[in-house]
């Protein structure tokens, strides 16, 4: 034992005692500083004397200083954890509150329904007024409801029309975040016989990079009508009725051929540009029309999957974005406002 080693042992013993005696995290940090924290700390000062020793002694003493330092640091960490837990426990205890000890207060502010809710409620009400009910379904769906029952068997090329997010449940790619509200069509047709007049609003998901026009999470509303004698003319009339009711009497709709696996004939529907009322402006690229959604007559294969006889019943379905309706109505240029929850945005509506 050298004199230095003795000193190291003494500093360590004293240090460990002081660490154990520290009453608060703040006090402990002071002790730590004095023992091991930087050039002027006790162990650092001892370390600086190593140079006076010969090689063998220096190695030996260096090792013991390092060992002492790590023991002190471990003790500090250990003690810090205990003290922090204790301090939190004390604070938590001091803050104990009887939740029911509530004195009522008057308040005089108003809150705000989210714009997407407002659009959704208004759209629901429009269709309810036409005799529809509102149906809902899960956001996590099976592949069968989201694709297969909608006339897209496995490996069907049309599946690539949607960038799908899958979840880790069940067999690989068997469970997914619904890419549209259309699975609700199948669930409704399975659970009740025609006549069916429903709209199904809700959250949908796509594997999209967020930008001003896209979010991986968005809101859609789906319509499904199944009854005797339903025609494409009924579809066109219903779209027109909803368009003028929601956007205003000067706003009209038109259908043009498109493709969806679950409808045939299929159509895209456009509404007159609500900014220029069809005269042509920058928003509608001078066309006077803005594309809003997809629709069509329910494909016989979809009826088959849902157990409905396509010779007895016919039907139509349509779907479009709720967020997009709200964006058009309120001149919102970035869909990300809808999930940013900035109160300065929310309280405007």
């Amino acid at each position, binding site marked *: 034992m050298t004199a230095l080693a003795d000193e190291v042992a003494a500093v360590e013993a004293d240090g460990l005692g002081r660490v154990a005696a520290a009453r608060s995290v703040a006090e402990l940090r002071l002790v730590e500083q004095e023992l091991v924290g930087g050039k002027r700390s006790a162990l650092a000062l001892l370390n600086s004397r190593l140079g006076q020793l010969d090689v063998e002694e220096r190695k030996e003493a260096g090792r013991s200083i390092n060992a002492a330092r790590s023991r002190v640091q471990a003790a500090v960490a250990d003690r810090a954890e205990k003290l922090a837990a204790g301090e939190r426990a004390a604070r938590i205890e001091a803050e104990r509150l009887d939740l029911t000890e509530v004195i009522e207060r008057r308040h005089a502010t108003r809150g705000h329904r989210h714009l997407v809710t407002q659009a959704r409620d208004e759209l629901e009400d429009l269709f309810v007024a036409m005799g529809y009910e*509102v149906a809902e379904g899960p956001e996590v769906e099976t592949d069968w409801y989201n694709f297969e029952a909608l006339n897209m068997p496995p490996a069907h090329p049309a599946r690539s029309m949607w960038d799908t997010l899958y979840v880790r449940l069940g067999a690989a790619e068997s469970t997914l975040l619904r890419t549209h509200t259309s699975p609700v069509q199948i669930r409704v047709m399975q659970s009740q016989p025609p006549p069916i007049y429903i709209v199904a609003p809700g959250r949908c998901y796509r594997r999209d990079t967020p930008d001003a026009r896209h979010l991986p999470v968005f809101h859609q509303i789906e319509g499904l009508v199944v009854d005797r004698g339903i025609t494409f003319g009924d579809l066109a*009339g219903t779209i027109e009725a909803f368009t003028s009711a929601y956007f205003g009497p000067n706003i009209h709709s038109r259908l043009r051929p498109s493709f969806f696996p679950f409808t045939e004939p299929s159509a895209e529907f456009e509404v007159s540009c609500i900014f220029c009322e069809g005269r042509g402006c920058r928003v509608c690229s001078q066309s006077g029309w803005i594309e809003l959604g997809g629709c069509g007559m329910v494909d016989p294969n979809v009826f088959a999957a849902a157990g409905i006889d396509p010779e007895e019943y016919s039907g139509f379905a349509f779907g479009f974005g709720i967020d997009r309706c709200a964006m058009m109505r309120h001149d919102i240029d970035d869909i990300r406002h809808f999930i940013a929850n900035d109160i300065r945005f929310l309280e405007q509506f």
Partner: protein
Amino acid sequence: MRVPLSWLRDFAPISGHPADLAAALSGLGLVVEGMETFGEGLGDVIVARVLATRPHPNADKVQVVDVDAGDGADLQIVCGAFNFAAGDLVPLAPVGARLPGGMQIGRRNVRGQWSNGMLCSGAELALSADGEGIMILDAELAPGTPLTEALGIAADVVFDLDVTPNRPDALSVAGVARDLAAHLGVPFSIPELPAPAGGEYGATVSVVVEAPDLCPQFTGTVLSGVSIGASPQWMAQRLTLAGMRPINNIVDVSNYVMLELGQPNHPYDLDRLPGGGLLVRRARDGETLVTLDDVERALGPDDCLICDANGAAVGIAGVMGGASSEISAATTTVALEAAWFDPVAVARTSKRLGLRTEASVRFERGVDPDGVNRAVARFCQLAGEVAGATVAGPSVDVRGDLPRPARVVLRTSRVNAILGTGLSPADVSGYLQPIGFRSTPTGDGDFRVDVPSWRPDCEREIDVIEEVARHHGYTRIARTMPAITKVGGLSAYQRDRRRAREILVGAGLSEAWATSFLAAEDLARAGLPPDAVEVENPLAAEESLLRPSLLPGLLRAIASNAGHRRPDVGLFEIGHIFLLPPPGEQLPNEPEHLAVALGGGDAQDAVRIWNVLTDGMRLVDVALETTSLPGLHPTRSARVLAGGRPVGGIGEVDPQVLAAYAIEGRVGWFELDLGALLASPRRPAIHRPISRFPSADIDLAFVVEETVPAAAVERTLSRAAGDVLERIELFDVFRSPSLEGERSLAWRLRFSALDHTLTEDELTALRLRAIDAVTSTHPARLRG
């Protein structure tokens, strides 16, 4: 699909204003996403010869160029490109010219040097996508010649069509022309070409198909005497307008035929094809091939390969060729492949390799099985014209089972029943005939319809009805409304949910919508257990989990609002949360939750909102049970019971969690399973009589041990006061050092009877009963 108007006119006498034609195409479902004019606005641009180039004295990103614009004089131009040398011919936009993009050329001083015009790139002239360097022109041209004349450019219009996956026929110029001609009522025809006749040598290529299921038809045709060079301007221009880069005359003919007829095809250099033949087989496990794009592709038995006669792979069938037998400047003999590959197999291979090509897209959607030989004939004709090729021998055509186009029963009655139209049988067949659907009447307005080979998507009556609707015009179908015999409405739950929203809005809260996704670390940060449904293929780390609670989303909203100096916002959200499914079930448990977050509010503020909500929803069997809950302040939280069952938690967010979100101050909180809450017992909305007689108040203050919740004392008071109690309100809480472990709670009780004014004696008795009930039930005493 980009379609030049001039090309459409090769097949039908299409006239009319381009904007009207665009509207017609859109109306047919070939939606025009963009329309470009080409070769317009080039009238001012001329050919100029570069005389000399020299560095700019004050700038190194540009150089100074002298050109001869045809008048023999030196014209000084400052130019930012360096890809030319003295003697080259280049396009010059002189001072005063206006370019296709609208740019007006003026005389400019560039750091002390005058620039009297601009030398142009292909992109600046809207002639090509090449914006890298100045366009170098044919050395034979005379300076001063107008550029349009020098290049033989004809003005054209390009329609950029969004072709839906069900229309493989519209991935060809001819297919688009057929649809448009039918709509316009003008004749359409694809010129008939003779089958390539055997040449003088009778040379053929050997063809062996070992995988007839993946490749039901394969043709090989030899063309000799090929002279590789640049394509003529008209062909290069059409390819460019259609979005393809001209390469050399043979490759361009191949692309031209694909774009025109929709039949992908592949020319090989026969001399670089060992064994002088082609063989089609499945790939072997672990086999690899370097494709034309210089990427080594790993293949397997599901993939179909094109090989040389020795079995070495030279291309992936229907997707992309290999590098080894590519057409080069030295090619003189071409072996042309034109085949029909199984759409499902091509789709599978293309998807697995992540390799989508013009060819794979067409094969995947289904090319015309009757169109292979026509494409071969067209290739031979064009290769003869532009590359001097002659057909060396008859095509070798190996055929197996090609799909037969459908034959469909079409009822006019069904057409009208689905569309809501009043079409006659003649109307129906009249719409179908010009697009190649041959309809044979079978009586009663019914038809047997032979679907053309280029429409593999039409297999059923309903598919043909769509064709009738398209050519009749969707917008001409009269609008009607279904005769609904049902009364619509919201479900009880949907009405209640709206009511809950209104109550919270009325209480001053604003509604938030947070994303359903969380990052993995969000759970620990919010003090929540680590169990959550995982997303298999998230695009970003913040989308790895589905939220098991609304807490992280609303805390983020509180924090970001605090960052905008709005720390005191009150927010609520109603949305689905996702819990791992019970064993044996596939879908997660997905209850709809309601959560409230009060920035700067404490647990009691949360309870105030809760009280408003329960009162508004007329919930009667609800209680708060003090306990610790994940993410919440351990001594300031309670479990919410409704109908005796736990439905959520209430209190304050744990300070540790708030620190993790960098939120200062407190956050009052509750989160509930909305469905479970609303399913608990409710007070019926039945009128309770109101007293006509004056009411009387009694104030009672008790010193109560801290361990006893105020609500417990209040319940005792209410019960003791009985049905003459009109209302009860806690109006004062008082603590002082002299009341150690206790506090004083003061209530105001308001009494009234329905049938008389309460007397002093009655009130005294009520007072005593209330005091007695409290002091005998709780560790409490009346405050003197």
